[in-house]
């Protein structure tokens, strides 16, 4: 039950993009087409789940065990950077088309705040192993949901007559604001 609550909380109630503002760069940068938004979401979900697991192990069996909490950020970022490098090589080998779509944003998953945020928040909230994994996965699904909805709206916006000054990032942010308002409706669904 607690895992279900954690999952729902991470997907809709505390959606990482719309309530914690993490992962905004790809959210704005890769949300022009639904297909590429979906692949970005899946790549992030994959990296996020593995990150949650690996950083939990490092936090408990290395950092806490040896009294090295000040190395937290350095060790997390090394884990994330290596994971992303690995995913990048994997996608390049298996799907060159996908590799071209994600382009510059794949290495930028390293600097996707959402990934590091998953690692930080599980240490901060002192989550258990499974809970931490579920939260990482849920956060990834939540990110995917948000970016796909956003891409859907932006495909429609292409044909809309937007005032010149608002074109580009400005209208995207305002759309995100309205989306965030809608997601606030989920507040109180879970207590976590």
């Amino acid at each position: 039950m607690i895992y279900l609550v954690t999952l729902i909380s991470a997907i809709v109630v505390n959606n990482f993009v719309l309530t914690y503002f993490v992962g905004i760069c790809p959210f704005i940068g890769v949300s022009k087409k639904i297909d590429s938004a979906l692949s970005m979401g899946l790549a992030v979900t994959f990296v996020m789940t593995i990150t949650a697991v690996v950083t939990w192990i490092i936090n408990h069996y290395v950092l806490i065990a040896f009294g090295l909490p000040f190395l937290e950020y350095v060790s997390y970022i090394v884990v994330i950077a290596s994971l992303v490098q690995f995913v990048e090589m994997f996608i390049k080998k298996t799907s060159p088309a996908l590799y071209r779509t994600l382009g510059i944003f794949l290495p930028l998953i390293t600097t996707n705040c959402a990934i590091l945020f998953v690692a930080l928040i599980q240490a901060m909230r002192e989550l258990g192993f499974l809970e931490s994994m579920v939260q990482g996965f849920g956060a990834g699904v939540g990110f995917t949901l948000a970016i796909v909805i956003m891409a859907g709206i932006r495909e429609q916006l292409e044909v809309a007559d937007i005032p010149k000054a608002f074109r580009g990032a400005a209208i995207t942010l305002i759309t995100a604001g309205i989306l965030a308002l809608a997601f606030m409706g989920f507040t109180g669904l879970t207590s976590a």
Partner: protein
Amino acid sequence: MADVAVHRSITTEFMKGIVRDNPVFVQVLGMCPVLAVTTSVANGIGMGLATTFVLVFSTLIASTVKGVVPNQVRIPVYAVVIATFVTIADLVLKAFFPPLSASLGPYVPLIVVNCIIMGRVEAFATRNRPGISLVDALGMGAGFTLSLMVLGAVREVLGSGALLGVPLFGEGFSPMLVMILPPGAFLTLGILMAVFNAVKAKNDPVLIRT
């Protein structure tokens, strides 16, 4: 690219971070601290200065060691350099400014993954000499801090009816709570960005990017 940069004057290099290539309004980078901590001006300044500190030292180190770092592992190497300076900034904030550190919360460690820092390191510091990289970092840092201050000011005045904690309006003012909640952050930044575009288009029609 390197040659062009050397010939440009230091002032232009500094000023481009504030207006022409403003990291927030033009490049749309480093959005997560921009949106998350700008509920007040003080938070904005604190976050801006912490980011500038990390940016300056990371670009200095990166442009100094660029010759000895193999190309394949450069991103992890720079990430570790950045994470080290973020740890320093975080410990300093915790030790000397505990209230600020508490209100910035997890967004201080998140400076590690601020796209502006990795972006400047990748796009500028690894292609230029340390001196000019320092100027570039200072300009970008100043542009970032200013943007955070403006956004923080708008949201604090509308959302809590105060500026730097000092109440501005009388009893009759009811604050627009939404401005300090997540949607307010997106809406304010979106509108400010449009204003920035409009002003820029008026003054300099050639430079605007659509």
